């Protein structure tokens, strides 16, 4: 067994879904459909309403996924042939505006430009929030 493996991708991936709702992240060597996420967030079966998704992986190998107008950050753990949802972290009741994810070891930083909110997340949820930017 190999221990102390670091899965962190350090830099988020910003990926445009194709017309069938699939996203391909070459950096993380992963391809999946965002149908279920869109349906879950917006109650629609039309992945094209999403312009781009943002994805980052932390040290333990969890994928953090969110997008513009999402109310949640989704935390997945990869398993054989699937991504198993581990957490769904609510970050906004009305949907977060133009979010982006940074790797701030050991946390994932979620920033929203318009809401001027910063969240420090791990797979378990929000570690810290409501830090104003530019302060």
């Amino acid at each position, binding site marked *: 067994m190999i221990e102390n493996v670091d899965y962190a991708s*350090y830099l988020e991936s*910003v990926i445009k879904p194709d017309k069938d709702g699939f996203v391909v992240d070459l950096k993380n060597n992963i391809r999946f459909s965002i149908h279920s996420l869109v349906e879950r967030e917006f109650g629609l079966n039309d992945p094209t309403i999403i312009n781009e998704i943002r994805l980052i992986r932390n040290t333990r190998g969890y994928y953090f996924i969110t997008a513009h107008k999402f109310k949640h950050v989704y935390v997945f753990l990869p398993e054989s042939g699937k991504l198993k949802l581990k957490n769904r972290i609510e970050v906004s009741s009305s949907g977060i505006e133009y979010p982006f994810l940074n790797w*701030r070891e*050991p946390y994932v930083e979620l920033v929203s430009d318009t809401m001027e909110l*910063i969240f420090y997340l791990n797979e378990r949820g929000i570690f*810290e929030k409501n830090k104003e930017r*530019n302060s």
Partner: protein
Amino acid sequence: MKNIISILLLIITIPLSVLSQKSDFDMVEDFKSDIQNLSYKIENIISSSQINTFHMEIEKTKKIYGKNKLMFDRALYPQNIEQTFTQLELSLLAVENRLVLIEHQREQLVSMRNRTASMKLEINRLYTITDTLKRKLSSAKKEVNTYVNELKGYNDLLIQRDSLVIRIIDSMLISYDKTVSIISDLKLKKPKLLNSDSPLEWIYTVLTQINATTDYNSSFLTVEDYLRMHSLQIRFNHAWKKMQAGLITVYGLNDDYLQLSIEHELKIWDDRSQKYMWSNIHKYLTNQDMILSTFSDADSFFESLENYIQESHRLTKQEFLSKKGYIQSKKVADFWNSTFKNEWLLYSNVFYSGETQNIERIDKSLSYWENDTQPIHPMFVSILSLALVSITGFIFLMIKTKEKR
């Protein structure tokens, strides 16, 4: 413990992220874009004077993005931010080298242009010199033509002078013959005639002038000229010998100084004219492929020429089928009749002892040679061959007829 470390780390890293004001992704994209732009600008630098500006630009960019070195190093993996800037610096250095080279070439081009301009000036200068030389050459040609004309004039004058001398000598002789009886009387009475227009003075003057002005070594004199001048000398000498005694009696005043002077000048004239004439005839004949044994006076010349004719005759008389001997004999005859005899006999109407016989003998030898080597006419050969064939055929028929009987 681990949590405490994490919190501490977060406290350190949070201000950095706050300062960044952008997502790491966007920062990396901006960085890539900035580097790409910078790289493009570097590639398009047109003057080495801009190089320093770009060094500063690189430094500035490095400073901006260097704050997040760790993040960039991770994001740019397998490259890192240092390598990216090093590559930019290397590109800038390559461009700088290229520009310096180009600018150096530009300088060289300017230098070459200057040299070309200088060479054009030099060529123009040479053209000017060439023009001057052309003019000088043209002028020299004119001078040569003038010189040639003058030489021709000189030769013409020589001929005229010789002709004039002959006319005067002849008229003197005629006058002398007419007054010869008077001179006989004068001899007896021994009068003392004083005459400043003495013909002796005139003869002496003519002789000294001829000896002083005739350039026998001139390359413009021909064989004909030498022959004519020698012929004149013989004629003059003859006239002098005839008039000498009477003229001395009348004008000599018992002083033999003038007589001796005239004799001396005549001797000089004779020696020089003969010497150059015979050597030039020999040279002329040699050039015409007529190799004669050496000769230095009339006798040896006639002998040498006759020997040559007879020897050539002997060698070529069997060659009647070819024209070689005939052509050779015609060439010798041409020299003998047209060149030699024409001039040799021009003024000299008095022959020394044996001269006539010599000339007649050579005439005969030449005539024999010419006759013996005259080629047979081709028509004659054809007729002879035809006759021979006919006779042979006739004999053959006669024999056949006899056999049948």
